[in-house]
């Protein structure tokens, strides 16, 4: 397209269509963020399940792995922003959705840790305790600590939300399918014991982020090879 040549109306329309297609097809997420979060959330959930199933503990809380992943994520985001040559209209929307997701997960983890402690304080002030009572009377009553029942189901529900929005806005089928399946896992988790919710959460992270991340990465590398 070196010359400023005049051309026919038909050629004009063809050129417009071609350029719009080029612009739309120019952008592929590198997939690294999806791979990172898919891997860490899946591993943390799966290890949590194993800890509950086989009754063992680790030196540190495995969920610190998820918090630690924020550091490489910041680096990845900065590098991707630096390499970005064109900004799409929906980039700001997608970034806002994932930011809100991050805040919501962070807030939910606070809820999970603070609510039982506060509840215990309140019931201690009121002078009563929570007791596990066996109806058949074969075991004595046990005093139990307040807890947030089946909270991991809510995490699974929240995993699906930004994934679905991204899938719909970017018209990326693997994320749409991942989100729909995760809504299914959320429903399933309502009927399962909380330790199995962890297992379902691990599967949700794989289908929401890790598998779409693998697909995005392949597309990105294929596009990079084409551009070289």
């Amino acid at each position: 397209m070196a010359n400023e040549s005049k051309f026919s109306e038909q050629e004009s329309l063809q050129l417009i269509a071609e350029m719009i297609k080029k612009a739309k097809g120019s952008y592929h997420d590198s997939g690294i963020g999806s791979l990172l979060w898919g891997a860490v959330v899946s591993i943390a959930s799966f290890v949590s399940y194993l800890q509950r199933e086989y009754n063992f503990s680790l030196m540190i809380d495995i969920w610190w792995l998820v918090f630690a992943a924020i550091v490489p994520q910041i680096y990845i985001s900065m590098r991707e922003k630096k390499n970005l040559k064109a900004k799409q209209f929906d980039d700001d929307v997608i970034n806002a959705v994932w930011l809100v997701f991050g805040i919501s997960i962070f807030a939910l983890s606070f809820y999970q840790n603070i609510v039982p402690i506060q509840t215990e304080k309140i019931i201690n002030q009121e002078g009563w305790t929570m007791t596990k009572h066996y109806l058949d009377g074969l075991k004595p009553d046990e005093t139990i600590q307040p807890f947030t029942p089946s909270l991991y189901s809510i995490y699974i529900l929240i995993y699906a939300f930004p994934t679905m929005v991204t899938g719909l806005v970017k018209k990326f089928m693997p994320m749409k399918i991942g989100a729909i399946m995760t809504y299914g896992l959320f429903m399933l988790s309502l009927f399962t014991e909380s330790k199995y919710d962890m297992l379902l959460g691990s599967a949700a992270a794989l289908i929401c982020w890790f598998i779409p991340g693998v697909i995005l990465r392949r597309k990105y590398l294929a596009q990079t090879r084409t551009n070289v």
Partner: protein
Amino acid sequence: MFKELDPILHSQLRLAVMSLLISVKEAEFTFIREKTNASAGNLSVQVQKLKDAGYIEVVKQFKDNYPQTTCKITPEGIQAFEEYVKALQQYLKV
């Protein structure tokens, strides 16, 4: 009666630039050059013409010690592009 095609837009490279910019929020000069396969010199001239017509905004800045030129379509540019496409459709009876 056919509407006259906007002479600023009815040029291969300028129309290519506008078609790219209408599809994205903003784009770097290097991105436009890569997609249009135009030479830097020719592209600079056409970008300047579009800027002079008020169809695009051009921001020149430094990023990591390198000059960076970013282009963005203006509301006037969007309107002109839409009118151009309408006029084309009239010609072609699409």
